[in-house]
Structures are given as C-alpha cells and as structure tokens.
C-alpha cells in the first residue's frame, strides 16, 4: 500500500502531488495491478487534507485509466506504468551517472545541473516536433 505525503512548500497543488505520487509508485513498480489505494478516510487521517482533494486526485487517476473505483470496496490499480521501460532503467541510470561525472568534472554544481536538465527536458527535441 502506498503512503502519501505532502510538501507544503512545493507550490504544487495537493491533489496534483497525490497524483504524482501514485504515478511515481506505478512507474517504480511499488504499485502493481490489483493493488488497493488507501481509502479517502485513511489518506485524510494520515496527511490531514480535505477529503475532496483526495476524491479529486482519485477521479483524475481514474480518468487517466490508471485506477478504478469499486463502490464500497475501494480504489484499485488497473494498469502499471512500468511496462518495458523498467528493464531499461538500470542501463540508463549507468549512463546518467557517467554523464553526471562528466558534468561535475566540467565544473557544474548541482544547481547548474538541475537547471540544465530542466531546460533540456522542456526544449522540444527533433523527434517530437
């Protein structure tokens, strides 16, 4: 079962944080098909947020086709986001480590690295245009 937490300083809306955490867990294989998400009551009793926020996040996840709500039983994961990519993670991580070492050697500090990655991810690449 996934445990939610909220970052009050991130500026990301709470319901969005919940969605991101579910997606993250799906991607990392922490949640798999058939797993039950915590009930709304369990979530609000854990992180002290408005139940409507949780409803909204769960509705959005349902809309994205990741979970399904069975009335009176709970909300269940119907699909994972790991698919084939999980297998590729390890080699990609290795490459990233190599790249990070290179970047540090070139004199970039963590902040510059973050900024570089963020701008690069947001810049449309040739394939996607």
């Amino acid at each position, binding site marked *: 079962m996934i445990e939610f937490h909220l970052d009050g300083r991130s500026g990301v809306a709470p319901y969005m944080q919940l969605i991101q955490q579910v997606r993250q867990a799906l991607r990392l294989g922490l949640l798999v098909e058939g797993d039950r998400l915590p009930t709304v009551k369990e979530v609000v*009793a854990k992180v002290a947020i408005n139940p409507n926020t949780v409803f909204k996040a769960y509705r959005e996840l349902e809309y994205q086709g990741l979970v399904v709500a069975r009335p009176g039983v709970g909300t269940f994961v119907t699909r994972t986001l790991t698919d084939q990519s999980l297998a590729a993670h390890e080699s990609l991580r290795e490459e990233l480590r190599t790249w990070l070492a290179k970047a540090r050697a070139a004199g970039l500090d963590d902040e510059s690295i973050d900024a570089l990655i963020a701008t690069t991810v947001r810049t449309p690449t040739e394939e996607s245009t």
Partner: protein
Amino acid sequence: MTAPALKAVGLTKRYGRHHALSDCTLDIPAGRVVGLVGPNGAGKTTLLQLAAGMLAPTAGTIEALGGHPASGADQLAKVGFVAQDTPTYANLSIADHLRFGAHTNPGWSQATAEERIAQLGLDPRQKAGKLSGGQRSQLALTMAIAKRPELLILDEPVASLDPMARREFMKALMGFTADDKASVILSSHLVSDLERVCDYLVVLVASRVQIAGDVDDLLAGHFRLTGPRRELAELPGGVDVIEESHTERQSTLIVRADVPLDGGSFTVEKLTLEDLVLAYLSKAMPARPAWESTR
C-alpha cells in the same frame, strides 16, 4: 436541492457603536470545508457565534442549513459548534462528558466517541481539567463529532495548540468530514492552518467580508503581474487590482481577472493561497505602511 451550509444577507452585529460585523453577505454551499481567515479582531468569532445562534444579529439575517440558528432542538442537533479555547468541565471526567453528550443529543454515537477517546490514548476516568490543551480540544472535537452534526463550526480550533497537536486535530477533523460528508467551517488567523484542508475560503478583515469563494476558483482567478512600471489604465477591462507596489522601474500587481491575461510586457504568475489572502488583508488595512515597503 440541499440548503446552503451558511447563508447570510446584510448580516450586521454592533456592540454600542463598535461594528463587530458589517453588512456581511455569504452563500456557502453544503458539503464543503470552509476556511474563515482574518486577523484577530476581524469579526470571525462574531460571525461563527451568529451562525451557531450564540449571538443574535443587530441587523440582517443568517441561516445555517436553511434553519434559524439555535431555534430549537432540531436545529441544535444539526449544527455542532466548538467554541474558542474549547471549553470543557474541569471537574468532570471524560466519561461524564460523553455521558452528557449521550443524554442531550438524539443522534449521538457513543461508539464513535469511545473509539476516538481510545485512539487518543486517553483514560475515560480522567478529569477534563487535568488534560493538556491539545487533549482538551480533542475532547471537545470528539463531543462535536459524536453528536453527528451536518454542519460543524469550529472557532480557532488550533490557535492554542502546538504543531503536533494541530496536525492531530486536523487529521481527526478531516477523518470526520470524509466519513459523514458533513460541512465544516473553521476559522484561523493563519492561512497555513487552513491551506490543506479548505476547499472554500472566506476572508474577513475589519468586520467585512473581503472575498469568499471556492479555493480552486480563487486561485484560478488571481495573478501576480510583474513588469516595467506603467499606468494601470492600460490593463484590460475585467481586471481588478487588489494590491500594487512600485519601484522606480518595476510594478508588481496582484489582480483578480475574469478574462484571460495575455501578459504583454507583464509576467503573469499564479498565486499561492497565502499570497492571495495577504493581498486582501493589506488592501483592507491600508494603514500599515510597513507592509508596503516590505513588498
């Protein structure tokens, strides 16, 4: 159609010549968690006590769940009220308090009450006077929850609590709203207390309602514009300036906009709830020059 949780029209409360609440008009739908924010002395307690029927208005009307506040046992059963500083009977035990609730409320759930007391790790034989502030407010909340009201009103419930007790209190309160689909109205002078839990916000400053609305709508309709200094007349129609501050070259505006803002030479940013509330606070309290200069 369900009656609104709270409906006020021209609601005014005066003490002699002092206006505690002026011409307040609200229509808060049921099923929401409503945050009532404002500085100390803004009239939050007055508004909540009017809603609970502890006070009678000087002028105007107020209805809670479509009924006249405290007009009878039925109305009292529908509306729960936890007063500021969560009063309890110091020389009576927790069990006595629960028995009191059971004797006086038709919808009382003893199971809920006992379960909560057990969860809190409290001994029912303990006298309320021996409890810590946090435990006392939990007892008051337990009584209000076990009463099973459709509308629960809480006046500054966490103001006197430490951060740990605050969190525990909010968890319990949110657990209740998830269970019972009840409406909740709670006040605080700190937005941070309410940010996570509220989906509806009322800002009360200097005895007047400055703004009230759905939190998502409020956030979607307010922006911070930063850009080179220029005249306000250049802003498109449908844009209200809430707060402005200028340096020699730059202007920072907090605006409410019903129309899309293309920005132009201005950078358009979304606001956090806290920024939004602060903008309305400083708008309603202009006699604070220190505020201007720090922005």
